[in-house]
C-alpha cells in the first residue's frame, strides 16, 4: 500500500511540473486481432534534443513470489529499489546487458537502490524461484507510459516538436515500427500500434 501511495505521489508531482501548454499523446496498442495489449510501454523520444538525466526513483517489489509490477518503465538514471515483501528470501539477478547484477539472498529492502543508467530492457529473475520474472524498461526520455488493460496509454506534458514513438511489450515478437510525430502546443494526438506477438 505504501508503494502505491508513493507511486501516485510521483505521478502527481510530474503532472504538476508539466506546463499547461503541453501536448498529449493518446496511444492505443492492439494485437493483430484487435485485442488490447496490456503492459505495453509507449515512450516518445524527442528528436535531436538532449534530455537531462532523471533523478527519479522507482520500486520493483517482490510479493507472493512475483515481481510487482511485471513491467516497470523507468527513465535512464532512475534508482530502483528491490524491496522483498515476502517472508522468504529472494535472490534477484539480471544477465541483461543494460544492467547486469545480482542481489544475493536477502529479506526486506536492500540498503542501496540500483541506478539504471543505460537504456535497454533488463530482464529480472530470481535465482531460487525460476518462475519469477519481470522487466525494467529503461528509456532515454521522461515521456513514457504503460498501457492499462484496455491497451491505452497516455503521454502528457510534451513540448511541441518532433518525436519518435516506440512501443515495447514483453512477449512481442518484433518491435512495432516506431512512429515519427510532430506535436503542436496543446495538441492531443491519438496514435495506434498493432503489435505482433502475444498480448
Amino acid at each position, binding site marked *: 500500500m505504501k508503494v502505491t501511495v508513493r507511486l501516485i505521489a510521483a505521478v502527481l508531482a510530474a503532472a504538476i511540473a508539466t506546463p499547461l501548454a503541453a501536448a498529449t499523446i493518446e496511444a492505443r496498442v492492439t494485437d493483430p486481432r484487435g485485442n488490447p495489449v496490456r503492459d505495453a510501454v509507449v515512450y516518445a523520444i524527442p528528436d535531436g534534443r538532449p534530455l537531462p538525466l532523471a533523478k527519479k526513483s522507482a520500486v520493483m517489489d517482490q510479493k507472493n513470489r512475483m515481481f510487482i509490477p511485471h513491467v516497470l518503465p523507468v527513465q535512464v538514471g532512475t534508482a530502483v529499489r528491490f524491496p522483498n515483501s515476502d517472508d522468504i528470501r529472494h535472490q534477484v*539477478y*539480471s*544477465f*541483461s546487458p543494460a544492467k*547486469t547484477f545480482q542481489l544475493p539472498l536477502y529479506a526486506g529492502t536492500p540498503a542501496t537502490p540500483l541506478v539504471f543508467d543505460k537504456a535497454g530492457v533488463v*530482464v529480472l*529473475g*530470481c*535465482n531460487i524461484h*525460476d*518462475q*519469477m*520474472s519481470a522487466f525494467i524498461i529503461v528509456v532515454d526520455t521522461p515521456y513514457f507510459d504503460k498501457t492499462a488493460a484496455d491497451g491505452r496509454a497516455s503521454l502528457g506534458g510534451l513540448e511541441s516538436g518532433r518525436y519518435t514513438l516506440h512501443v515495447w511489450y514483453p512477449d512481442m515478437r518484433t518491435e512495432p515500427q516506431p512512429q515519427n510525430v510532430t506535436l503542436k502546443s496543446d495538441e492531443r494526438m491519438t496514435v495506434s500500434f498493432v503489435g505482433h506477438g502475444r498480448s
Partner: protein
Amino acid sequence: MAVRSFQARLLYLLIAILVLLDAGTLISVYFAGQRTLRNTVTEQLRVGSRVLNRILDTRARQLSDSLRVLALDFAFREAVASADVPTITSVLANHGSRIAADAVVLVQLDGIVTADTLGGRLSRKPFPFAGLLRDAQNRGEASATVSFANRPYQFVIVPVLAPRPIAWVCAGFEIDDRVLTDVRRLTSLDISIWSGSAGSPLAPDESKYATLFEPLPTGDGSRVNALLARDLEEAQKPFRKLELQIFALSTIVLIVAVFAAVIFARSVSQPLRVLAEGAGRVERGDYVTPIVVQQEDEIGHLATAFNQMQSAIATREDEIRYQATHDALTGLPNRTLFLDRLSYAIAGAKRNVGSPVGPSVGMIMMDVDRFKEINDTLGHQVGDQLLIDIGRRLEHTLRQSDTVARLGGDEFAVMFTAPTFKHAEDVAARIVGAFDAPIILGDVSIDVNASLGIALYPAHADDAGTLMRHADIAMYDAKREHSGIAVYEPGRDEHTLRRLSLIMDLRQAITRDELELYFQPKADVESERVVHAEALVRWNHPRHGVMRPDEFIPLAEQSGKIGLITKWVIRKAIAQCAEWRRDGLDLTIAVNLSALDLFDSELPIFISGLLTEARLPPASLVLEITESAVMKDAAFAQKMLADLKRRGVCLAIDDFGTGYSSLAHLKRLPVDELKIDKSFVLNLSESAADDLVIVRSTIELGHNMGLVVIAEGVETAESWAILKRLGCDMAQGYFMTKPLPAEAFKAWLRASSWGN
C-alpha cells in the same frame, strides 16, 4: 492261416491307425510350432523395435531433463551470459561432462552457434540441426536421433533461461553399446544401430537369424538404421523340447497301444481259432466234442450256435444216412447198404477161412413174378402194400443176422451165411414156402410167385458186386425156366454181359434205324403159289452184324422194349403189304407177336388204326402167337385174341407142338391157323415115322377144328411132297427161299415159279 491273417490284419489296422494318429499329432505339433515360432519371432522383433524406440525416447527424456537442470545452473547461465567464447566453451565442456554428453553446443536465439565442445567446429555458423532448433522454438525443448560425424547420436536441446531464454544449449549423446545392451537384455535380441546408408555391421546369417530392419526416425532426415536379429536356434529351443516330449509321449502311447491291440486281437482271434477247430472237427465227422469258449459275448453265442448246429448236423446226417441206405417204402436196407453188408460179410469170411462156420456167404436175388400186372390191375397202392408185406414175410422167414433188402421195383435180395449149397437151397425153399399162403390185402387175395437166383461166395464170385450179378443171372434163369429157384451156373457170365450190352444197344436200335424187315414166303401147297409172307425182324447191329430175332427178342422182352419193336414191325409190315398190293402183289402179311404183347391192351386199337390208314382189309394181316405165350395167362390172352379176332385180323398159333396146351384150351382160342413147329418138319421123310405121325395128326387135328394148317421148316422136296400128300394147307421154309429183304423178296417172287 485265415485266423492268423485276421489277427494280423486287425493288428496292422490298429497299429496303422495309431501310427497315423501319432504322425498326425507330431506333424501338426511341428507345423503349429513352426507357425508359433515365426509369429513369436516376428512379435519379438516388433517388440524389440518398440523397446528400442522406447529406450531411445526414455533416454532422450532423461538427457533432456539432465540438460535442463544443467542449463539452470546459475554459474552456467552466468558464464553463458558473459558472452566470452572461451569461457562459454569451457563451461560447456565442464558441465557437459557432468551429464556425460559427447558434444555440447551453445546456440544463439537467432540460430547461430556461439560455441561448441568440438573445437569450435560449428561456431559462428548456423546450427546444423535446424529442424531440432525449430522444434525447440515451438515446444520449448526438443530431442532427436541424428547421424552425427557418421555415428548415431541423440541430440537434445533446451533453452538457457535468465529467466527468459537467452540462448539454446544442445547436447549430443552417441547411441553406444550401453544402450544396445539394455535393448539386448530386455528383448533377448541382437541389435546393431548404425548411421548412413551402408549395410549393417552385424550382417547375420539369414538362415540362422530372423531379422528386422528398422530405420529410426531422425530429426534432420539423416539415416540412422537399426537391425534387430533373433537367433532362431535359440528361439526354437522350447519348441524342440516340446516336440521331443510329444514324440516321446507318442512313442510310449504307441507301444502301449500296440500291446493293447495285440491282446485285443488275440482275444478276438483266439476264440475264432477254437471255433474254426470245432468246425474242422464237424467237417471230419466228429459230432460229439463240443466247442468250449468261455465268453459271454457274440463269440460265446457263436460257439453255442456252433454246438447246436453240430448236434443238428449229427441228427440230420443220421437221417440222411438212413434214407440213403434204406428203402423208403419197406424200410428195408437198399441196394447200397446191401452191397455194403455183402462186401463186409465177404471180407469177414475171407479173414475167417479156418472157422467152423466155413468161409461162405450166400445171397438170393428174388423177383416177384407178374408184379407189373398186379400193379396195373390192382393199382399202385395195392402194389406198394404188397411189396411191404413181401418184405415183412422175408424178414420173418430169415434169421435176425441175415439181411433182407429191397433193391428196387419188385426185386429183393437176401444175404445169409451158407456153409453149403444145401444150406442155401434150404433158405431158398423156406422163402418159397413163405409165399405158399396168399397175401390178403383188403378183400383181395394175391398168390405171390417169385423167381429166386442163388449165388455163393466163394464158389461163384470173389467179391460182392460179382456175387450180386451172378445171383441176378441165376434169378433170370429161374424166371425163364419157371423153375422158381435156380443156382448160378459158372460160365454164364460172358453171355450175360453180352446180353446186358445188347439190352443197352436195343434202346437205340429203333431210333438209329438199325432194324430191318425180312420176308419169308408161305406157299399154298395145293396151288404151289405164294399167298402169305411172314415178316421177320433183323437187327443190323453195328458191332455184332445181322442178328436174328431169337437172339434179341428175349432181351427185348426182358427189358420191356418188345412192345416198341412189335409195333414197329407191324407198322412196317402193313406199309409193305400196302405197297406190294399197289404193285399187284396180293399177299397176306404175317407178323409174330410176343407173349408180352398180349398184355398190351391197346394193341388191337393200334393195329386197327394202321389197317384203316393203309386201306387194307383186316384179313390181310395174320398175327402169329406162340403156344407158350398163349398159355402164360390163358384168360387174358383169350380176351385179347378175341378182341383182335373181332376186328377181323387173322390169328395163328405159332410153334404148335412145343408147348403143353390142352386141346380144350386150344379149342377156346379164336384162331384161324395152326403152324406146326419146324422141329417136326425139318427131318420129315417117309422113313421118319414119329414125325410123320405127329405131322399127320396135327394136320388132321387142325382141319378137324376148322383151322388152316401151315408147316414150317420145309427144306426138301421130299418133305414138301409128304406135306402135299398129308393135305397140309400151306408151307414155308428154305425149300422155297430163305427170308429176304423187301426188294429182294419182290424180285425173287417175280422171277420164281412160286410167283403168279
